[in-house]
């Protein structure tokens, strides 16, 4: 019997010929990412009693969760992270670079066939590049600094097969919200998800990324998409080293294969306060909004900003709406500037902010007021997520966010 991606990759990283679900293996990650939590992790690392990080070359620090610092506490937190990275010889991307899950792929760290762990739950994102990406805890990142190793349980694997053809404007985001509704926020609990099928094969990399990114919202340990020519082309000139792809074997065994025909899928919106509270956008139509957020590691790459610019070109956002646009990375911002999208969005009334997480987890730059309703291209709508438990967050694709910003209420973009 063949191995799934997870079984094969974890065997490789554990130095074994195979692994089985449920087995616990000790592995050496290729990359370990930490972000604004690095200062805290550094303190934990020091408690272990080791002076030097065992292999500084596998660690990457990205400052992104509250950049530039909102107040002196955040500033001191960044200062400590910078000092630690410098002292240990660890690569640090400072506040100019963007969100970790976009910066690591752009800078060639997240590669096919690698094991990338991150002290951040959305580290599943790296699966879009054919890597095994998974979130770990702060203590575990500290232990990897000390020992280079971590234990992982080999997950059961499931396949999500997409066929058919999306209706114009409907995207992988709409599909993932639909999937969350279908299987629930624990529908893939502890599983490795392999996303596959003709729809995935044809998708741009930016659209693919959304799927492993949201995989954690349905409980998955990782989400994987086979690296192909699209991946190779994108990685050209970025990859920091040569890579060897790891792919599931044809006779691999899955606990489940779910097939979806996406042809009839409408634009979806996920209502507060859970990602699986998803319905067709039309069912939320008329819900007044005060903020529209186009950002996060889920959905604000160039392709997403282009869609928003296309929707907003020559239009004004509704006077009752504040629209915040935060590109995923510096590279994205530069490209958006070059294409004229930034101008289009600002002319339409959007506020542009520097790359980073922004209000996604409620630290700064657009925290919600009591009673506010926000439509967001991000990935989490938990109560209080954007800094205020008296506000509501609805998740949607960038196109739905932009269309709703014009309307001043949630809309199905096909209706305006």
């Amino acid at each position, binding site marked *: 019997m063949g191995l799934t991606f997870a079984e094969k990759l974890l065997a490789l990283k554990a130095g074994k010929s195979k692994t089985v679900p449920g087995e616990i293996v000790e592995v050496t990650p290729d990359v370990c990412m930490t972000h604004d939590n690095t200062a805290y992790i550094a303190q934990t690392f020091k408690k272990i009693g080791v002076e030097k990080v065992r292999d500084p070359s596998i660690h990457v620090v990205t400052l992104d969760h509250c950049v530039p610092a909102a107040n002196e506490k955040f500033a001191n937190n960044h200062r400590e992270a910078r000092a630690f990275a410098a002292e240990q010889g660890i690569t640090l991307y400072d506040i100019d670079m963007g969100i970790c899950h976009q910066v690591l792929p752009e800078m060639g760290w997240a590669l096919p066939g690698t094991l990338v762990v991150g002290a951040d739950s959305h580290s599943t994102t790296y699966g879009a590049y054919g890597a095994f990406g998974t979130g770990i805890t702060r*203590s575990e990142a500290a232990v990897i600094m000390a020992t280079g190793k971590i234990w992982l349980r080999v997950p059961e694997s499931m396949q999500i097969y997409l066929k058919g053809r999306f209706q114009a404007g409907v995207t992988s985001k709409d599909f993932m919200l639909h999937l969350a509704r279908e299987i629930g926020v624990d529908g893939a609990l502890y599983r490795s998800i392999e996303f596959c099928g003709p729809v995935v094969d044809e998708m741009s990399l930016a659209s693919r990324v959304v799927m492993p990114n949201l995989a954690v919202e349905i409980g998955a340990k990782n989400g994987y998409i086979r690296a192909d020519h699209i991946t190779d082309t994108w990685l050209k000139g970025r990859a920091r080293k040569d890579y060897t792809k790891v792919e599931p074997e044809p006779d691999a065994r899955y606990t489940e294969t779910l097939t979806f025909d996406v042809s009839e899928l409408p634009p979806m919106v996920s209502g507060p306060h859970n990602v699986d509270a998803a319905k067709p956008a039309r069912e939320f139509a008329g819900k007044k909004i005060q903020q529209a957020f186009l950002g996060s590691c889920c959905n604000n790459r160039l392709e997403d900003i282009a869609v928003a610019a296309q929707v907003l070109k020559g239009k004004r956002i509704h006077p009752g709406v504040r629209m915040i646009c935060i590109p995923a990375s510096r590279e994205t911002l530069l490209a958006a500037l070059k294409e004229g999208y930034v101008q289009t969005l600002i002319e339409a009334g959007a506020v542009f902010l520097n790359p980073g997480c922004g209000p996604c987890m409620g630290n700064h730059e657009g925290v919600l007021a009591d009673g506010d309703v926000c439509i967001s291209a991000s990935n989490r709508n938990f109560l209080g997520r954007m*800094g205020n438990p008296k506000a509501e967050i609805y998740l949607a694709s960038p196109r739905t966010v932009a269309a709703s910003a014009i309307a001043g209420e949630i809309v199905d973009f096909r209706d305006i």
Partner: protein
Amino acid sequence: MPEIVKGRVWKYGDNINTDVIFPGKYTYTINDPKEMAKHAMEDADSEFVQKVKPGDIIVAGKNFGCGSSREQAAICLKEAGVGAIVAKSFSRIYFRNCINIGLPMVTSTEASDHLKPGDTVTIDFKKGKITTPTDTFDFPPLPEAILGIVDAGGLIPYTRNRLGKA
């Protein structure tokens, strides 16, 4: 980890996420466990911090601790005095956080269904039993490979031992 925990039940539903256990806005500015405890369950249950007593037990539905990887979501409960968490299932990172910081947790659908708010419950980890004045529920032990971490009192002491730093 203690062998026996005894306390009153605080009952919650499914999918209690890390943002309601410990809001994201505090994650980079609060590093002191005592401070973390003051915000435990802040957006899930505003009475919790005032009324929780040492040893109290959180009983929840499925997927407890889904969402962020933030360790504070486990530390704040431990520091607030929570003796153990019983749930139908845990999100994977939350499970790891509990193991790593030494917050005892039990997976049991039966117990989660039957235990009621305010019940006084005893959990015996060695025997794998949860007992109330009227009921008993069995639960399986943790995997062998993980028990070493639990026995050492968490991942950091475990690693110190392994590296001969103890």
